[in-house]
């Protein structure tokens, strides 16, 4: 046997882990590049904004600038807002949004599943729901203000009407699209109608419902903020409206930044819960 013949396979086995290593390294490098470019983009935009505003290419009074916005947030954090401590405003808005969201989701799921299961109800109520859904429901916020006053109740109500419909439609669709085989199997195994609803229809509709939960928390925040904007005693929405009334553009942006952080935190929490609920699902990369 010649030495060349012996050496070839040896080279090959050394090469294989080498290649996978270099592939892993390339993947890591790409990740770093993406992150760096992402940060640079943010810095670039904020920097341009700041520079243009300082050079008065854009009107600093109307458009404000990142440093001013940050100063505003910092003042709110350290000295509190005109309405009281910042934490209290955030808590108020969050409380209204959360309560509205929970109520809206509960109502949406119950009605969605009920109409999805009971064709008679769906046939009777179908057109009315379509009409209600086609209405821009945010217009109800002023009415709720008249009905429920300046307190949290009116904001909760507007959050509920915004949240209800997307959740309802998804739950309805989910209940309708249940695998017929699973229902037939459950019935053969001995499940009553109630059991089929609770143990087949609802579990298989959960993935539909969860999809709508992500969107609908955003809607709940919109409902709460718009409600506060129209009339309130506390909350981020009121902060926005006050900043607007005093031509404090930085204040409006600052409130936006705070809202974004709140919404992202809620989204993160929801994703965490979703992972726990859907342990039975295959993870698709």
């Amino acid at each position, binding site marked *: 046997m010649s030495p060349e013949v012996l050496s070839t396979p040896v080279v090959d086995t050394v090469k294989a882990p080498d290649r996978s290593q270099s592939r892993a390294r390339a993947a890591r490098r790409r990740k770093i590049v993406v992150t760096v470019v992402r940060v640079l983009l943010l810095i670039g935009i904020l920097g341009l904004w700041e520079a243009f505003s300082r050079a008065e290419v854009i009107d600093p009074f109307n458009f404000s600038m990142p440093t001013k916005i940050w100063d505003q947030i910092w003042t709110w954090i350290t000295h509190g807002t005109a309405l009281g401590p910042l934490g209290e405003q955030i808590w108020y808005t969050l409380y209204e949004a959360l309560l509205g969201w929970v109520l809206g989701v509960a109502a949406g799921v119950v009605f969605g599943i009920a109409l999805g299961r009971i064709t008679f109800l769906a046939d009777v109520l179908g057109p009315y729901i379509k009409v209600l859904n086609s209405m821009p429901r945010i217009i109800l916020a002023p009415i709720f203000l008249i009905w429920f006053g300046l307190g949290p109740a009116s904001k909760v109500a507007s959050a509920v009407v915004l949240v209800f419909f997307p959740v309802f439609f998804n739950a309805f669709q989910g209940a309708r699209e249940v695998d017929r085989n699973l229902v037939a199997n459950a019935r053969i*195994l001995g499940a009553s109608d109630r059991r089929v609803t609770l143990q087949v229809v609802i579990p298989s509709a959960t993935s539909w419902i969860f999809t709508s939960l992500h969107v609908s928390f955003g809607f709940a925040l919109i409902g709460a903020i718009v409600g506060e904007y129209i009339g309130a005693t506390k909350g981020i929405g009121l902060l926005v409206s006050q900043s607007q009334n005093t031509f404090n553009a930085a204040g409006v942006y600052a409130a936006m930044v705070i809202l974004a952080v709140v919404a992202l935190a809620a989204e993160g929490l929801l994703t965490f819960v979703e992972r726990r609920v859907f342990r039975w699902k295959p993870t698709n990369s």
Partner: protein
Amino acid sequence: MSADTSPAIQLRGASKIFRTPSGGLHTAVRELDLTVGRGEFVAVVGPTGCGKSTTLTLVSGLEEPTEGEVLVAGEPVHGVGDKVGFVFQQDATFPWRTVLSNVMAGPRFRGVPKAEARQKAREWLARVGLAAFEDRYPHQLSGGQRKRVALAATFVNDPEILLMDEPFSALDVQTRALMSDELLELWEGTGASVVFVTHDLEESIALADKVVVMTAGPATVKQVFDIDLPRPRKVESVRLEPRFIEIYREIWESLGEEVRITRERGAAHVA
């Protein structure tokens, strides 16, 4: 006549007519007469789409016949009874339940206490060789393992009547032979009557006491063949026996004609 001496399943002049979405009428099954004795394994073969599955849904009580009668243990079928087990062609395991919980579902639906249901489920999981997999979810199993879960979930209810709708058609050939043997083993201990629908003639001869050949749709019974191969059988070896091949040829003469009719209809449809 007492319920004990009447045959397990009797279809008398049963017809099933569906209303199609376009408003027309589709006859799936026409004047079907079929008797399945107690403890008998009957395979139903016929061309694809001829209405074999509909026969099973009539016996199970999931659908009611448009005309005629369906009797289970001498009693007319009204809705899903508790004597029947059904293994579906597609996967019908509940994806959000673990393997153990899937097998427990039947007894739990029927009001068996939890501890007892768990114990029975574990027994059947052991019998299908999945004892080590009880905490897995269906998506973590192979197709063959999921079918075993479905078998355990069906057998755990102690069905007197076992309906199987092409249960192994989605599996690869080797797994299929393995599952057929397992099915025979599981069945031999129970004394249940089986109606096994398939379009695979070899499978039907290897498994059954009686092979029923259906006509091209709308389905009705064309001919019934008794399979006199001795039990216990091993699916892989029994199909090499001369008697098996003889029976195969005999039945295929009858079935082949129906398959040809179906195929010609399909071709006419395309043309």
